[in-house]
């Protein structure tokens, strides 16, 4: 353990030799002002930021439709985020690129940090070790917190308080009307979720991914996940297939649909329909940014809830 005397002796040695030099401290503001914008890369952050601040004050750095799980921001995108007054991210495992990108921590606002801890859903994951290293896993909090109306409201309230202070020309009072409008849209989304719950009426919804956990909880639908892991284009996860077969065994217990939060694997979906009688339904969680003229994350999310409700209705009527 180093002792203070070491430091003092080092200082004495240097001072007694009187060997020193150096120029004055540089100016702190050598880089100039940052852009008066909030940078976003995903659908939910784009939704909240644009709804509260307007599109002019929001810089969307990811191309429309980009899956955050696969995205590698190029240098220009990173520079644009670093240059912004705030970078709004979802956090958790939703944006793996965050672990590999140099964003300014003091200006990065994480959506999952703004929501109540007791509302988060945690799932397990495959645990593994490397040689003699500690065993570990890559599971954790389900990151799709924005799909939970309660958490989305909490995030909006927190951002409506904090974001205006970071931007020039924006007062808290400016965001009150847009905030109220957005909360109204969330009420409509919540109503759709209630209808979904009523339609499922106690039947289990089977999904290929945990992304639907908050939707299911908010809709009071029982969710079972068969982790197929077909995103990479390879064969499905064996355990996921076994889970799917087990869950689909009793047609009276499930809603007759297999929900795909990611892209549907057409060949696998066809086999599932033929062999297990499950109709595949794509569910857009709104994770990707929208392009000009296209629906925003909440519209897509609400539309997905309605589409799922209709698919369940159709399946049950057969």
């Amino acid at each position: 353990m180093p002792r203070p005397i070491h430091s003092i002796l080092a200082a004495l040695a240097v001072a007694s030799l009187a060997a020193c030099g150096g120029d004055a401290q540089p100016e702190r503001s050598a880089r100039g002002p940052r852009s008066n914008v909030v940078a976003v890369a995903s659908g939910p952050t784009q939704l909240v930021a644009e709804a509260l601040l307007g599109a002019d004050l929001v810089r969307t750095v990811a191309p429309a439709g980009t899956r955050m799980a696969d995205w590698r921001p190029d240098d220009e995108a990173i520079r644009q985020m670093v240059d912004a007054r705030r970078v709004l991210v979802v956090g958790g495992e939703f944006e793996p690129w965050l672990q590999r990108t140099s964003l300014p921590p003091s200006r990065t606002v994480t959506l999952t940090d703004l929501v109540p801890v007791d509302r988060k859903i945690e799932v397990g994951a495959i645990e593994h070790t490397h040689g003699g290293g500690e065993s570990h896993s890559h599971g954790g909090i389900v990151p799709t917190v924005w799909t939970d109306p309660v958490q989305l409201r909490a995030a909006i309230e927190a951002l409506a308080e904090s974001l205006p202070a970071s931007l020039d020309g924006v007062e808290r009072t400016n965001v009150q009307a847009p905030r109220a409008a957005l909360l109204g849209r969330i009420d409509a989304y919540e109503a759709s979720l209630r209808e979904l719950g009523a339609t499922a009426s106690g039947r289990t919804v089977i999904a290929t991914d945990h992304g639907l956990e908050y939707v299911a909880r908010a809709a009071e639908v029982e969710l079972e996940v068969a982790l197929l892991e077909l995103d990479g284009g390879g064969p499905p996860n064996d355990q996921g297939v076994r889970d799917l077969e087990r869950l689909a065994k009793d047609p009276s217990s499930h809603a007759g649909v297999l929900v795909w939060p990611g892209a549907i694997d057409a060949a696998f979906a066809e086999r599932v329909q033929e062999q297990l009688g499950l109709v595949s339904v794509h569910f857009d969680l709104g994770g990707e940014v929208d392009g000009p003229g296209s629906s925003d994350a909440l519209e897509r999310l609400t539309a997905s809830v309605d589409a799922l409700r209709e698919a369940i209705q159709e399946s049950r009527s057969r």
Partner: protein
Amino acid sequence: MRGIAYLAWRHASAHRGRTLLLVGCIALALWVPWTAGALARLYDADLRARASSTPLVIGAPGNRYDLTLAALYFRPSELETVTYAEMERLQREGRATFVPMHLRFTARGAPIVATSVEYAEFRGLVPREGTDPLRIGEVTLGAGVADALGLGAGDRLYSDPTELYDISRPPALKMRVAGVYARTGTADDDAVFCDVRTAWVLEGIAHGHQSTDQIEDDLVLSRTDESVSVSGALIEYAEVTPENEASFHYHGDSSILPLSAILALPESQKDGTILKSGVNARRTHQAVTPSAVVDDLLGVVFRIKAFFDLVGAFLVATTAALVALVFLLSSRLRAPEMRTLDRIGAPRRAALGLVGLEVAGVLILATAAAGGATALTLALLPDLVATF
């Protein structure tokens, strides 16, 4: 040149060796305290400037001098670490901007300062070439390091292995030079900057390798639905490339990712005071004001300097006495010369003037030489404050 001045000049020239010796002795006696004083003033000003521009440093409890000098000058130390989660917790209090610092590694002998872009913004570091480090595995060099190693944007730099013979430790990381900062004349010139996440790769907390379902079977010790155990022989990537970047991930609890220190830049003095007292009251960490720590340090240093000043004064006094003795003895030897002056009708004060002019000439030359040597020393001495 005429009269007494000419005679004095001729005498000094005729005894060139003695004159040069006198000039050298006096110059040396003056150079030591002058240089020491000037360097000490520069040292003091520089140390205080860097310290006073850094409002607060937060770290693990322990030696506050080590913590301060590590945070300001990247001086190697065995500081206990603080967690990144602690920084995030402080950040949520909203009283300051917090800058993470991880200082355990070196690259070609230069300290690797693993931090965030806020550090460069705070210290006014502007890339003269390339960019800040934008992603893991990238570094931006201080101007001194870049010049010394002859590296620029696009080149590669290896980190220094910490445990050469311990194969369980991560190998040296081949890092891409993203840019070079313009020279600032501070310790930042002699450092290598990277994102704090790169330090966690160097620590072995984060690493990249093939996906567990792509690893060859002979490297898999066991595989179940819930667990995959991989042999230690699996080679982790020693360079982050666009192709393998996505495979880099953290191990264990991300809330315990280590930092050496946290710079805190409060919004106001009130925020700084509340922040400091809050951190110190909890006793799990310490918050120090670098200017106060440096004042303490310099207080000790400059008490010792007073002693060296006294030694310098004795040196000057001793030299002056010896020079006086030399001139006294010399004037005795020159008695016939003075008598000749008297006989040819020179005024009585001519002899005194002759010796006086010679003494003055020697003193002027010695002072000029000492001044020149001091200036040269200040110009040529390496910047030891930056490597403090």
